[in-house]
């Protein structure tokens, strides 16, 4: 696979504690890479190292096939978690200044900015001072500044914090659009909902160490519980009698003439075999695998167990949500 960015064996220690221990991440070109982890795990430290704001104690960084160099900052766009603007400066002026710091010439930056301002309905604010903007508008300006110089690598640290749902949606659309246009995006968050929606790859960092990484689909498969949920009508005999020892009934609920059942399939058994077994005796309305959400995987990996652990079945609340629906 072609990697746009690689960090190899990065370590960083502050007196008293380790921020990163031997962390490697490989960010594939064109896609969204989720950098996950609880607060204080070392995500922001890693991101700052990638942005060359701080230097690692050990390890190497590569941009494409080159070693990471200071000039590469012009090809990276960074939206930090702690972000703000000069309050007394005019919005347009400031955006142009920051664009020029990223190497965009003045006349060009003005044109590009006008386009983005148009898109985000910010044109009337061009000559206003930043302190007159609402928080959401200021965040939009920051987003524009991050992406304006068309960087190959975009790094968003908790991009949705402080946005209202409408703007979160707007931002998501823009991020997806940037990905479709070929940008590579590193996306740091502890909001698992957005990970599921956006990320192609993830790396999970906990207590300064990387504990999980890979393609989101592969990880989900790896964490699959082999539990399937069936919705059956016109059941001709009790469901227990249908199943042999390859299938373990975890739970069944009858409601309004419908039977909802969860069945765990023994390893090495194809899910189709369960379907074949059930089909002659009942009307199958729905059949789906109950996969753990990224949230469950995250919590399982970090704490060693699924959230809200139940003795009956090791599936999470969010898996229960499937049932409720």
């Amino acid at each position, binding site marked *: 696979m072609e990697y746009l960015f690689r960090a190899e064996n990065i370590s960083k220690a502050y007196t008293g504690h380790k921020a990163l221990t031997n962390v490697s991440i490989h960010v594939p070109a064109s896609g969204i890479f989720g950098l996950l982890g609880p607060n204080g795990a070392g995500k922001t430290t890693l991101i700052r190292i990638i942005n060359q704001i701080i230097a690692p104690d050990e390890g190497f960084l590569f941009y494409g096939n080159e070693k990471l160099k200071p000039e590469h900052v012009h090809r990276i766009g960074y939206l930090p978690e702690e972000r703000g*603007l000069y309050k007394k400066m005019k919005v347009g002026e400031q955006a142009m200044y920051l664009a020029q710091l990223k190497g965009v010439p003045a006349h060009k930056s003005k044109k590009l900015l006008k386009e983005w301002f148009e898109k985000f309905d910010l044109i009337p604010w061009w000559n206003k001072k930043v302190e007159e903007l609402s928080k959401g508008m200021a965040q939009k300006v920051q987003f524009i500044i991050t992406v304006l110089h068309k960087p190959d690598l975009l790094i968003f640290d908790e991009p949705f914090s402080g946005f209202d749902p409408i703007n979160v949606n707007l931002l998501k659309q823009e991020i997806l659009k940037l990905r479709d246009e070929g940008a590579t995006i590193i996306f740091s968050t502890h909001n698992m909902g957005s990970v599921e929606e956006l990320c192609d790859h993830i790396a999970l960092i906990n207590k300064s160490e990387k504990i999980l990484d890979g393609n989101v689909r592969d990880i989900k498969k790896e964490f699959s519980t082999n539990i399937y949920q069936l919705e059956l009508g016109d059941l001709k005999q009790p469901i227990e009698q249908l199943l042999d020892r390859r299938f373990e009934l975890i739970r069944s609920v009858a409601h309004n003439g419908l039977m909802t059942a969860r069945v765990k399939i023994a390893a090495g058994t194809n899910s189709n075999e369960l379907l074949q077994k059930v089909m002659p005796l009942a009307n199958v309305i729905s059949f789906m695998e109950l996969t753990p959400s990224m949230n469950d995987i995250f919590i399982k990996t970090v704490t060693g167990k699924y959230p809200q652990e139940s003795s009956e079945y090791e599936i999470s609340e969010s898996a229960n949500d499937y049932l409720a629906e």
Partner: protein
Amino acid sequence: MTILGPILLAALMIGPALIAIMSDSDYEVAIVDDTNMFYDAFSDTRNVKYTHLQTDIDSAMELMRGDKFDAVLHIPEVAFQAPSSLRLFSLKSVNFNAKSHMESVLKNEYESLKLTIAGIDPEVLMAVETRININAVRMDKDGLEKTDYPEVSMGLGFVSGLLIYMFIFLFGSQVLRGVLEEKTSRIVEIIVSSVKPFQLMMGKVIGIGLVGLTQFLIWVVLTFAIVGGVRATFPNLFQFTPTEQVHITATQSLNAEDLQRQMETVQMQNTTAGQILEGLQAINFPVMILSFLFYFIGGYLLYAALFAAIGSAVDNEADTQQFMLPVTVPLLFSIVMMQMIIQNPSGPVAFWLSIIPLTSPVIMMIRIPFGVPFMDLAISAVLLILGFIFTTWLAAKIYRTGILMYGKKIDYAELWKWIRYR
């Protein structure tokens, strides 16, 4: 500030002259001399007018109540034998200058009367009195002589030392506020993803330094323009200035005798301007100006780096205090030591303080008008350069960690850790 500054400075220079003219409203004193011995002794001064009344004291008091006079000086019959019987009556508080003047006049009169009684001719005494003013001559290496005017060197040293102090403080704290603003507004991380923290810090320091220099030059030019303009428009405003200067320096000593003498020798002092001019010629101006610029910039860079470090380490203006103290103490110390350095500009204290980078910008500027050996100047300059390289290095270490650190209580141990980070 840019416009207001020079106006204020010019006002500071013109103000005293204006005030001197305005306070010209005469202080009218009626003299009732029952002894008839002292009438001739009192002659009007610029602010005090004397009227000799041949009436008794009661009618004089009546006149004063009728607002004819501000005060009545009563010299009773027994005055010569008992000087403590002299009285100065007034309705309002007594004008201090007028009182001093009267006292010194009477003192002179008393003395000469007593001398006459003792059989000494006042003329002889006058002839005996000698005015001593040693002309200090400074030799330079080529054996050329220059008349030295320590007063001029003193003034020049004082002014340039103070200017450097002001500049460092004014623009150093501007650096601090700038860094703090970038930190608290959270823009700093956006910027350091484009430029290195060191570049950002140096940009701030140099940028504000250039703003400061520009502003300073505007001040100098505008101040002189305003003063010059006022001077050309109202030439008579400055006619009395030398007198006022004498007046001011004399009142500082608060010695009525000196005051009197100085007032009387105003005509002699009229040559002061000439003396100052000659004194200025004794100053080595190329050295003076070059070293002023050097210490101005060097001192600023040294301190601005430290101010930037403080700004980066704290979260808000209130927390700056604990770190400000050690930075401002050497500066304040230089100002406190000024007086002592001026007394002995080539002494060991002056030498060491003008060598140590933290105090040298202010102290060396005080010494330079008096003439400083080249070696001293060279050591001081080299140390100042090393000094600001060191503080900049130190500040950069603190800065790059500090700007990204929020919500943590910072103490010196913490700063030391930051300095040791790779």
